[in-house]
C-alpha cells in the first residue's frame, strides 16, 4: 500500500502497471459526484497483489462508489485507474474481464435455480471458472437445485461469493461479502479468500465487521464522506490502537489536572468526557501514565481502565465517532 492523498500529478505521467506487477490495482485521482453531493473525492490508492486490502467506513462513506468506479459501473468524473495492467476506459468491460465483483446490495432472480443463477453470473467466463464456482458452492453446501427465492440472505451471499471466486483473475472486489453469514460459513469464506490470496490475487474487501477485517486483511483503508482518511497496513493500525487507553472517571473529575498529569507522563493527547476518556500515548507502554495518575493524590482513581484490546473498534470510533459491528 502506498501513500493515499488527493492526487498531485497528472495520472498520465504514471507508468502503466503490467500484469503480475506488485500493484494489481492502481487508482489515481478517481472522483465522482452525484449532483452537488461529493460521493468520492479525488483519491490515490494501490492494492498490491497477494494481499487483502480492507475498505472501512460507515454507510455513505464512498466505499461502494469507489468499487463501482473502479469497475466502470459508475463513470468517474476524473482520474484514472488500472486493474491488472489494464487502464479503465469506456464502460470498463476490459477491467471487469480481469476482475470479479460481488456487490454489497443485490438481488438475484428468484425463479431461477441456483445452479443456473451461478452460470448466469459467470456468463462470459471460461469453463474452468464455472467448475470452480460450482465446486465452491457445493463445499458451502448450497442447495443448487433449488430456486433462489428459497435461499436465505446468507445463502444468496454465499452464491455470489462462489461466483466471485470462480474465475482466475488478478483482482477480486468484494463488498460486504460475509454479511449475514453464520460464524461457520464466515470462517470458511474467509479461509477460501486467504487461500486465494496466496496464489497472488489482490482483494479489495469492504466490510463493517472489524473482527473479520482484522483477522484477514493485510492493509486497511479508512474512508469517510468520500474522502480517504487513512491507508495503513494492519500491523500499523494495531500498533496505533495499542497506544490508546480508555479510562472512566467520576463526572466531577478535574480534567485539566488529569490532562496535565497524563501529558507529563507521556500522553500526547486526551479526548472525551470524564466517563469515557481516551488517552493517546507516545508508546505502547501505559504503565508510566497510569502510575502517574494513580499516584497523584489530587486525582480520583479511575473506575474502569481498558487497554490492550486489539482494538480496531477503538480506532474506528476515534476516526468516525461511532461504533462498527
Amino acid at each position: 500500500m502506498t501513500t493515499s492523498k488527493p492526487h498531485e500529478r497528472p495520472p498520465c505521467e504514471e507508468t502503466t502497471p503490467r500484469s503480475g506487477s506488485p500493484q494489481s490495482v492502481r487508482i489515481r485521482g478517481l472522483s465522482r459526484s452525484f449532483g452537488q453531493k461529493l460521493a468520492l473525492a479525488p483519491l490515490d490508492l494501490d492494492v498490491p497483489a497477494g494481499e487483502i486490502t480492507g475498505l472501512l467506513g460507515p454507510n455513505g462513506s464512498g466505499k461502494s462508489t469507489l468499487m463501482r468506479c473502479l469497475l466502470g459501473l459508475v463513470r468517474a468524473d476524473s482520474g484514472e485507474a488500472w486493474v491488472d495492467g489494464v487502464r479503465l476506459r469506456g464502460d470498463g468491460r476490459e477491467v471487469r474481464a480481469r476482475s470479479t465483483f460481488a456487490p454489497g446490495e443485490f438481488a438475484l432472480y428468484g425463479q431461477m435455480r441456483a445452479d443456473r443463477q451461478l452460470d448466469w453470473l459467470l456468463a462470459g467466463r471460461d469453463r474452468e471458472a464455472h467448475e470452480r464456482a460450482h465446486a465452491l458452492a457445493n463445499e458451502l453446501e448450497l442447495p443448487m437445485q433449488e430456486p433462489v427465492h428459497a435461499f436465505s440472505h446468507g445463502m444468496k451471499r454465499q452464491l455470489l461469493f462462489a461466483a466471485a471466486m470462480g474465475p482466475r483473475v488478478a483482482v477480486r472486489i468484494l463488498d460486504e461479502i460475509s454479511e449475514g453469514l453464520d460464524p461457520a460459513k464466515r470462517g470458511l469464506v474467509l479461509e477460501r479468500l486467504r487461500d486465494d490470496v496466496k496464489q497472488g490475487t489482490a482483494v479489495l474487501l469492504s466490510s463493517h465487521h472489524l473482527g473479520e477485517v482484522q483477522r484477514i486483511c493485510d492493509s486497511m483503508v479508512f474512508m469517510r464522506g468520500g474522502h480517504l482518511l487513512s491507508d495503513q497496513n494492519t500491523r500499523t493500525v494495531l500498533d496505533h490502537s495499542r497506544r490508546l487507553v480508555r479510562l472512566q472517571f467520576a463526572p466531577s473529575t478535574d480534567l485539566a489536572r488529569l490532562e496535565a498529569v497524563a501529558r507529563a507522563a507521556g500522553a500526547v493527547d486526551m479526548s472525551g468526557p470524564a466517563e469515557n476518556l481516551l488517552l493517546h500515548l507516545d508508546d505502547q507502554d501505559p504503565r508510566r501514565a497510569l502510575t502517574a495518575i494513580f499516584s497523584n493524590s489530587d486525582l480520583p482513581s479511575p473506575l474502569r481502565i481498558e487497554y490492550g484490546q486489539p482494538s480496531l473498534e477503538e480506532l474506528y470510533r476515534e476516526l468516525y465517532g461511532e461504533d462498527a459491528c
Partner: protein
Amino acid sequence: MERTLRSYLLPTLAYFLLLEAMLAAALLYWPNFEENVGALKAMAPIDLLKEMVDTLAQGGIEAYVTGQHFFKGCNTLGTAAAVLFSAGAVAGEVHRGTFEIWIARPFSRRRLLLERWVTGALAVCVPIFLTTLTVPWLLSFVDTQVPLQPLLLCCVRQSAFLLCIYSLTFLFSTVFDTPMGIALSMLFATSMAFAIYLVKVVTHWSIYRLTDIEVFMKIMDRGELDWSRLGPMIALSGVLLLVSLRTFARKVP
C-alpha cells in the same frame, strides 16, 4: 442471452396464441359477415364504424383480413406486447435489484442493451409474421383465399409501427426505474390514441391512422410498401434505440 430468451418465451407464446385465436375466430366468421354486412352496418353505433363496415364490404375478403388481423388484432394485442415486453427491459432490473449484477459481468453495456432490444423486438414482430402465415390455411376452411405476399408486406408495415411504440417504451425503461408506471402510462397513452381514432373530428390525430384498413388496402392493391411512411417509422425506432443506448451507458446502479 439465454435467460433473456427464456424470459420472453412464455409471454411471446401467449401473445402468439391469442393473436392466432383472434385471427381464427375472425376469419372463420367471414361467411356470416359477408352475409350480414348490411345488418352489421345498421347496428354500428357511430359513423366512423359504419364507414369501416362499408370499407370492409367494398374491399371484400382482403379488407376483412387486414382489418381483423392488423387493424384490430395486431394494433391492440401488438401494442400491449410492445409495451409489456419493453417496460421492464431495464427498469425491471432496477426494480428487482438485479441491475448491478446484470451489468457487472464482463460484457459491454451496448451488448447487454442491444441483446435485450433485439430479443424483445423479435418477440413483438415474429408472432405477427407467424400468424399471418396461417391465413391461407384458415381461409381454406371458408373456401376463399388471399395472396400471401402482400399480406407479408402488411406485416412489415405493422411491425415497423409497433417497433416505434416498443422503442419509445424501451427508452423510458432506460430512463425511469418503475416498470409498472411505464407500462401503465404507455398503455393509457396508446389506448387514448386508439380511442380518438374512432372520434371523427380528431381521428386524424391518432397514430393508428398509420396502420388502419385504408393503409393496408393500399399495400394489398399495389403489392408494395409506402416507404414515405415506413422509412421515417424505421428511422424513429433507430433514433430511439440510439438514445436508449446513450442513456443506458450513463445509468448508475
